[in-house]
């Protein structure tokens, strides 16, 4: 009894709740007005001295402070963000966040199902809203994520979620938004035993492509019918691809694969969305001609060939932007998503205009994922999913999140790591 009082006393003394639970924030109850910030709209535009208001989760006002009038009757809670920056909540596409907790521990991995063709697999039901990783990602400005399965030729369907939820149902904002397809590699590593082996032509490439073509041909024919007999869950799940309700995300890296993937998508009458696309810069006119969209991975990958420019991955984004190809940033993995904004920042150092970099984390991402009607930019009527940083959020030197909102709900920017930081700093403070 006595000792528990002491423990409680110590906790109280340092104002720490080491057992913080990161409770999802309640609905927005009061209108909020943010003044004076530089607002990066996520659509390529920036407003230097802005006013931004939101109410009931939606943006109700955004613009140059001098050109707007504040309606005093709204009883705004005002945040003075002079000298600070507002960004739309960043979106992490293609992530396994919430599908894996500890990569090396099998029981915590839920991103890879057995089987080659799994279009019926749905990531959303395995999405763990209580992952300890999610708050650490949120606190760097990533507020939305496309939860994506991996493995096989068709790993399954992704869902876009917001990162402050009680369960997967209220997390989901675009359920089963797309089906992912891993395009086979034309060259691959061939190895024997433990040797690293060589990278040589994949002699099964054509066969592997044919498996995809056959599946799509039959799925499409199936989709034309009514009362299917027998009912095929894989084809059922794929129907959305042909009526436009689901996106097809084709993961491919090399020139040959990207080209084949684009032509394939086109044959299916589907907008080609290429994921990864490290070699995209080599086939710009082709991609433009076929109106491909790119979810670009690997700003922080090594160049794919020894002779390639040493900074090729840093500058690919700038090349895509200059060519007018719609693209957004993406990073594989889970906890790594907190570094997604810095990939954009790094690309700015190599020629990508700053606001385009912001867009490739927000507005462009939303468009490519098909959620742009309601979110992704700081525009009237859109979700108030945004954050305020004291400094430039794309530069780790200056990024400092102060407030973040998802649908107007002011979310907790704490996380397990900050708790541990406080806990052990307190240990040392106490010793002094």
């Amino acid at each position: 009894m006595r000792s528990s009082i002491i423990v409680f006393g110590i906790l109280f003394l340092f104002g720490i709740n080491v057992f913080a639970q990161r409770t999802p924030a309640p609905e927005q109850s009061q209108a909020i007005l943010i003044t004076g910030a530089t607002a990066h709209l996520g659509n390529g535009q920036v407003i230097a001295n802005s006013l931004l208001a939101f109410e009931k989760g939606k943006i109700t006002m955004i613009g140059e402070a001098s050109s707007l009038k504040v309606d005093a009757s709204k009883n705004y809670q005002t945040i003075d963000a002079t000298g600070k920056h507002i960004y739309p909540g960043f979106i992490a596409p293609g992530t396994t966040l919430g599908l894996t907790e500890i990569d090396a521990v099998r029981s915590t991995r839920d991103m890879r199902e057995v089987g080659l063709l799994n279009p019926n697999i749905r990531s959303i039901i395995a999405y763990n809203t209580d992952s300890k990783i999610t708050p650490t990602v949120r606190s760097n400005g990533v507020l939305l994520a496309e939860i994506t399965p991996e493995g096989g030729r068709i790993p399954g369907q992704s869902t876009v979620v917001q990162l402050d939820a009680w369960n997967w149902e209220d997390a989901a904002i675009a359920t089963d938004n797309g089906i992912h397809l891993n395009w086979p590699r034309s060259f691959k590593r061939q190895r024997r035993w433990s040797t690293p082996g060589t990278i040589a032509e994949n002699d099964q490439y054509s066969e592997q492509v044919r498996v995809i073509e056959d599946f799509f041909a039959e799925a499409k024919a199936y989709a034309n019918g009514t009362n299917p007999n027998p009912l095929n869950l894989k084809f059922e799940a794929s129907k959305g691809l042909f009526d436009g309700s689901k996106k097809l995300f084709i993961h491919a890296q090399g020139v040959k694969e990207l080209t084949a993937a684009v032509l394939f998508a086109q044959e299916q009458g589907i907008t080609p969305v290429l994921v990864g696309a490290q070699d995209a810069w080599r086939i710009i006119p082709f991609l433009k001609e076929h109106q491909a969209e790119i979810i670009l991975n690997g700003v922080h990958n090594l160049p794919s060939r020894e002779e390639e420019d040493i900074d090729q991955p840093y500058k690919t984004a700038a090349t895509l932007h200059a060519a007018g190809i719609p693209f957004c940033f993406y990073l594989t993995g889970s906890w790594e998503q907190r570094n997604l904004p810095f990939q954009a920042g790094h690309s700015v150092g190599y020629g990508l205009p700053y606001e385009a970099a912001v867009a490739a984390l927000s507005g462009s991402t939303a468009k490519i994922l098909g959620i742009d009607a309601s979110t992704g930019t700081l525009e009237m009527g859109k979700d108030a999913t945004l954050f305020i940083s004291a400094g430039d959020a794309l530069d780790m030197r200056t990024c400092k999140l102060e407030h973040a909102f998802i649908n107007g709900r002011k979310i907790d920017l704490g996380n397990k790591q900050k708790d541990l930081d406080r806990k052990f700093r307190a240990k040392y403070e106490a010793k002094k």
Partner: protein
Amino acid sequence: MKNRYFFALVLLCSSLLLNAQETFPQNGVYDQRDGHYAFTNATIYQSYNQKIENATLLIKNGKIEAIGAGVVIPKTAVKIDAKGKHIYPSFIDLYASYGLPEPEAIQKRDDKPQFLSNKEGAYSWNEALRSEFAAQMHFSVDDSEAEKWRAQGFGALLTHQANGISRGSGSLVLTGTDPTHEMILNPKAAHVLSFSKGKSTQDFPSSLMGTIALLRQTYLDGAWYKKQGHKEQVNLSLNAWNDLQELPQIFAVGQRQEIFRAAKLGKEFGKKYIIRGTGDEYMRTEEIKATGSSLIVSLKFPKAYELENPFDALQADLADLKHWELAPENPGRLAKAGINFTLSTHGLKNKKDFLTNLRKAIKAGLSEEQALKALTYAPANLLGAYADIGSLEKGKLANFFIASNNLFSEDGKILHHWIKGKANVIEEWSENKISGIYDLKIGAQKYNLQVREKDGKNKIEIVVNDSTEIKVKHSLKKGLIHFSFTPENSKGKIALAGTAKEGQWSGSGTLADGTWVTWTAKRNDKMLGEREEPEGKDKDKKEEEETAAIKGEVVYPFLPYGWSEKPKAATYLVRNATVWTNEAEGILENTDVLFKDGKVMQIGKNLQAANAILIDGTEKHLTCGIIDEHSHIAISRGVNEGTQASSAEVRIGDVINAEDINIYRQLGGGVTTSQLLHGSANPIGGQSAIIKLRWGYTPEEMKFEGADGFIKFALGENVKQSNWGDNQRIRFPQTRMGVEQVFIDHFTRALEYKKQQQSGQSYRRDLELEALLEIIESKRFISCHSYQQGEINMLMKVAEQFGFTVNTFTHILEGYKVADKMKAHGAGGSTFSDWWAYKYEVIDAIPHNGAIMHDQGVVVAYNSDDAEMARRLNQEAAKAVMYSDLSEEEAWKFVTLNPAKLLHIDDRVGSVKAGKDADLVLWSDHPLSVYAKAEMTWVDGIKFFDRAEDKKMRKAIQEERARLIQKMIGDDSPGGKSGPPMKKFKHLYHCDDVHDEMH
């Protein structure tokens, strides 16, 4: 005369027995002959540099009796007129596996780790040490193989079984026919070693550095065994090892850098190895020359890839394309460099390619004399066999071959190959000079028959008119000819046979309808015209030749972005920059820095210097170079020797890979010094190497001179093999409890060892224990892979028990929990900025770790452990500012001064200070900003990276690549192309990569 000669040959080939087998019983009547032959009027290459025209070679009883222009031919000798022929001493290949059984693996019992050799008997603990293998015990003549060797000119081979690190002894054998007894010239001619464990299924060694350590220990064990005799134990492998030491030592290595590694090993133990490389030696001739090693050089030249599809062509590595072009120049370049070498068929899939490739090498710069030297004198001399083979001199073996012409010219062909005075026919020594125009008469019918010789072969045609020719199939052997053709407007064949001599043929045959006819063909006086080539082909050919003559440069290293000339130090004055000194002066604005001869000379305002290269630093930042405490780049063939709980004897310094493109890429990220660490697969790993990123230099030149020795230790999941699958459950330790005992046990044994050393008694030197003792005696310093606080604390306690300090905990993701204990112990921490959640032991990792440790007085560094991330460690440092509000200056030290301190090199690097090394980086922006780019990077005042130069190199790379692809597409060498491009997979090592990268 001619007939007689043919007759003689027939006899020779079928039944010649020079000597009956001395000890063997004879079934039948003895037929002893003395094989007395005189070859006259020949061009004889008496030795590689001595050619005699119109000379006679006299042989008897398998040996040379006389040679020269004025040799008197005894009546008892069979005389063979070799007019127009060239006679060469037989070639010698020092690297062959001829007449020996294929190596086989000893059956492995299961998929679990195999700690010891599975070979039964009193042999080495390591299955790859096979010194006891003696080629002589297993050799027997293989007639069909021997024929292939003879056809390429080889009369003697050093044959051994290519299996293991010590492969035992090789025999010097001849390529003649049975009996085997007479074909072994020296049963124990050489000891053959390699850096590859061959068929051994034992886990150790799993890496190149483990292999080198094993060899070093074996040299010591051999010496120990020699002393102790069989007193304590019998070890047949060590016994054999000792027996082999006085022989020539042949060492088979992989790519060029392994030549340095072998030479260094040899130097340590007083051995001059004859090193067998892989044909890429030209990429490092100067440095190879400096090792003083003799080489066995492969004539394997890569085939062209199919690159017509530009998408596929992207898969080809520039270095491979360049090698394709330059490989034939290898022997010539080695000769020019003055390196002693022999040539070998090693690596050739088909032995037939040997002479073809030899001619290519000659075309590419190797002189005929050098070629002959490398195939006769040099190998004979290296084996101490020059008294018997390698030239044609009185008393030497009658080992020679007769060529139709100069062998090195396009139409040179080996006709007969005599081994130990016994003839072997490669090709009929027929007078194939039948070319000309013949009037062929078959009954009443006349034809115009033309014979042309091309590439030593006759082509026969019936010429009907200017535009119509009919092919004639034929065969000509020993004066007998038969041929057939289908006349114009006929469906059936005319088939004829008869004799062919001196332009006069005749015989009989059948017409298409079966009519038996007689025929004659008589050569007329008309000149054989050149077959008309399609127009323009000559011009094309000329252009082709011109294109072929353009060749790329050898660059150092042989990779994209390699230098054609090593960059040199110069005097530089950087003006008006923001200088991050990392010293008491802090960050100085508008400041100049002068550096010269590799050192920083002056820091101040308005500096002047004569002859300095001026660099405008306005709005730029000048810092010292980034130091990566934990790196695994630039390592060859394996980062872990994790097959045992301790591998303290292995050294990364033995396997530095100076040819890793990541060195250059990291210079482009401002890195100048890296500690290359052993992996974390076992509690006591291997010794580290600290290098400066001197791109283009050799492995030894990259080492940080005079740096203290470090060693990798590891704790946690990797050393417990937690994530390695179900087969890896038997190596001790499997728990953290066991890890502690590994340390205590090994340090205890090291102290026991010290007692032995001090006892004055002879003892077995143990490299592992010596390294451990160095740790206890604070002569070697630990960098320990660590995550959880419990085991971190444990290691500090173990260290304290043995009286030393743990120098650095690397990774140290829970360092923030025990920062006070670390401070008290005196350990530093080198951590990640923000990695976590990738395994269970890192669930409590936090990005505030570095700053908390720092605030508690621990020396903190941020490291990469990753080839990619090392290129942007400046951004990683900035995360300490972001997560913990650390001052920018202190954050910057996390990747510069602090790692320098942890590596004990802060007296040389880690700050910008007069007198310190000029390892400097000029940044385009604030160095902690995500927008900053390293524009120039110097190491020792040598500019190794310059973004402007880099831009030029990119262009050059693109152009060279395009040129080579064009050239490859145009390549129409016989034998075709090898198929779509293919390249070596190059591993990017992390701590827990457990495999060797075989070449």
